[in-house]
């Protein structure tokens, strides 16, 4: 009985993915499958021959989802099959990552998630049962920076105002962050640089960046630390007063770096990078299907060098770095080394 169930489950996962989940289309799927069989035998040599799914481990609407949805049509064009995006949010990104791991390791499923810092929390706090070595990080496509945002017309209109207010009235200023994000760490690092306990700000935690940005836009919070580039499309509703980066960015010419403001106060400290958003496949894909791995990596690299794609991504504020697997992994490991120093924040 159990074996039958398992077989059934396995069979269903193998059905072409676009249809497998949709009961309405079951009949359609079986009708299509009959016709498709003949085609597939001819096309078997050329992967991919069925739709590819990008699993996103957050809710729709955030930076991860933006990156995946931006990438999907371009990858589809390059690979010649539809590329679908599936949001599997929840459990601090564990749900999506585990769902991805449970799929057949055949290259037809990809993952967009945050190997740093979210996986760091998953591995060190939630004992999620996976590790960096289970994955092949194709590329860290978008390393966002932390931005300090205030509502339009809010109480504080500069980073210095905020710092002064925190010092003058500890426990009065509210600060929104996404839990376990790079900004969550940075809020803690900022407070320890100011030599104040974390309770000197009202830290308000959100599950994802979209509701956090909504809260800033609505003036619910005094300020928020949010991933910067994914927030640029909402600049008419909130103001960036500082960025956690070595230099100012061209999109926000008048916005100072946090370092420069803190330096004027006589404070120097090192912040962690914001979310790294990466496209990921399985560690064993390279050995099992070397040709598929090469095709996937090639197509993805080509997309990230396509001027049309780059222009479109830029317009939407989506990052388009190409670091490749080796350099990506090195960057993630470097970030993990910093997180190790602030590991205790995870238990806040």
């Amino acid at each position, binding site marked *: 009985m159990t074996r039958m169930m398992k077989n059934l489950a396995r069979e269903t996962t193998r059905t072409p993915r676009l249809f497998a*989940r949709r009961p309405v289309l079951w009949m359609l799927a079986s009708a299509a499958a009959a016709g498709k069989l003949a085609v597939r035998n001819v096309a078997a040599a050329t992967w991919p021959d069925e739709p590819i799914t990008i699993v996103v481990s957050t809710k729709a609407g955030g930076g991860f989802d933006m990156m995946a949805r931006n990438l999907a049509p371009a990858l589809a064009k390059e690979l010649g099959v539809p590329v679908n995006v599936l949001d599997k949010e929840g*459990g601090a990104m564990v749900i999506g990552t585990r769902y991805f791991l449970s799929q057949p390791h055949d290259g037809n499923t990809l993952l967009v998630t945050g190997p740093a810092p979210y996986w760091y929390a998953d591995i060190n706090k939630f004992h999620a049962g996976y590790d960096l070595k289970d994955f092949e990080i194709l590329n860290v496509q978008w390393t966002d920076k932390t931005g300090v945002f205030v509502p339009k017309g809010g109480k504080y209109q500069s980073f210095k105002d905020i710092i002064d207010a925190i010092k003058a009235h500890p426990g009065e200023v509210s600060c929104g962050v996404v839990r376990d994000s790079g900004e969550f760490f940075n809020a803690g690092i900022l407070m320890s640089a100011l030599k104040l306990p974390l309770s000197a700000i009202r830290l308000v935690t959100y599950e994802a960046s979209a509701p956090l940005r909504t809260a800033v836009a609505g003036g619910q919070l005094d300020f928020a630390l949010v991933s910067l580039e994914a927030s640029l*499309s909402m600049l008419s509703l909130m103001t960036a007063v500082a960025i956690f980066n070595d230099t100012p960015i061209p999109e926000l010419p008048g916005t100072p770096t946090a370092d420069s403001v803190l330096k004027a106060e006589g404070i120097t400290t090192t912040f962690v990078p914001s979310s790294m958003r990466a496209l990921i496949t399985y560690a064993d894909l390279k050995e099992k299907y070397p040709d598929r791995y090469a095709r996937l990596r090639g197509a993805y690299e080509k997309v990230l060098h396509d001027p049309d794609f780059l222009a479109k991504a830029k317009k939407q504020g989506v990052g388009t770095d190409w670091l490749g697997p080796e350099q990506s992994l090195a960057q993630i490991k470097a970030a993990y080394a910093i997180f190790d120093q602030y590991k205790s924040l995870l238990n806040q």
Partner: protein
Amino acid sequence: MIDWQALASAFHILGSSYSAWLLTIPGIALGMLGGAIPGVSSALILAIVLPATLWMSLLSALIFMTAIYTGAAFGVAIPAILMGVPGSPAAVATSFDGYPMTQRGEHNLALGLALAASTLGHMGAYLILFVFIGVISHAVLKLGPLEMLLLMLWGLTLIAALRGRYVSRSLLSGLLGILIATIGLSPRDVIRGTFDLPELLDGVPVVPAMIGLFAASELFNLAGASYLVQRSDLRTVSVRDIARGMLQALQHPVVILRGLIIGATIGGLPGVGAAVCNLVSYAETRRGDKHPETFGKGNPKGIIAAEAGNASSEAGSMATLLALGIPGGASSAVMLAALSLHDVTGGPQFLDASKDVVYAIILNNFVQGAIMLALGLGLIGLMANIIRIPVRVLIPVILVLATFGSYGLSGNMAGPATMVAFGLLGWFMQRHDYSVPACVVGLILGGKVENALLQTYQISGGWQLSYFAGRPIAMVLLVLLLFSLFSRPLMQTWRARRPALGAAPEENAIESV
């Protein structure tokens, strides 16, 4: 508030674009059919058609997608009314009075009520959107965690209202629902009640659990019966009765208005949506009514309130999506993706630059309401025949569909497993007079309430009164909530005491003895 020039331009676009109109009817039909299958949500259908919108113009794509959304909002009511099985949290409140009406043989009437309320809610909310889109989208942003908390508590008070024979057992079922909602990773990152099963880290999947609770409990219950409607003379499909139901809905404009204001304002907030709107609208209508005890037993106003609240939340979510670029839920996130496929980012700039497109979508949605009325009439005429199917055939078909639906939702066996587990629980609860709807309300709202509660605690610096004093909207909501909770018992006490003070003191003296 209305940009007349953009409006004229919107008429022009709509008049010259036949493809947008061609897509409206199939869109509504697709949404309605999909919505009528338990477990298939509008977000699912939208995600399936998303790649196709790449070949449409921006306007056609948005119109097609809103048409699906519109159709699905009504489609979910059909199984909720006919079988007591809401296919999505958006139709939970519809089933409270819809299914009892079906059992009494008033299925035609109930479906007519739902169709009219849905259509009016949809059109009315778009009318609000048409006039106030800029204002409403910004006003919605003013609702912080405290306001959300109060709104959801309002919904949660339904637990006490949805009682069966014993109040205590209903409260217990509501608590059980809330308790189940706490399973998984808490908003404070504490892992609770997962028994180390990674599948439970994100909590119990709500929709399969809900379908299990409702479907299995209802269907097991029916196993002894031969038909959904006991009396064979009532087992008919009557267009006249459906039309009568539609007219009856018109007699309760206040209920509809209340529902559509709730839907149009809070429907677009991230994490609220139709799932909360239909419950809040139902709770409010029930409490404002002279005979609240008739709700849950087949009161037509219950269906009207639920459907108006649920159908109007589409307009609410379109307001935040188009005017702010914020997706309120899964469906509008897919629409946001469609916008980005067309190189458009929603938000104030889009609203300013493309107000004609926004108006065109709104105008088209008025027409969608009319089309939905016609298509819906045909569909419910067809679907109402379910009551003629012997229960022994119906049960396996529904269970199989629901199993596929829950598999589709989770993408693995966790969905069907949850459905079966909750089916058994639902059957047990039903058998022993524990209210299943109360448990579902707890399950749907429990997690949301906890998140809002934590954020309120954090943002107020640990319940500092100065924060609450600066939130006038919240204070109004709180007063309304307290008033609606306690006004009736207080009034009753007052009325009971009044004769004591006035005309008949002796009588009262005897009574009090």
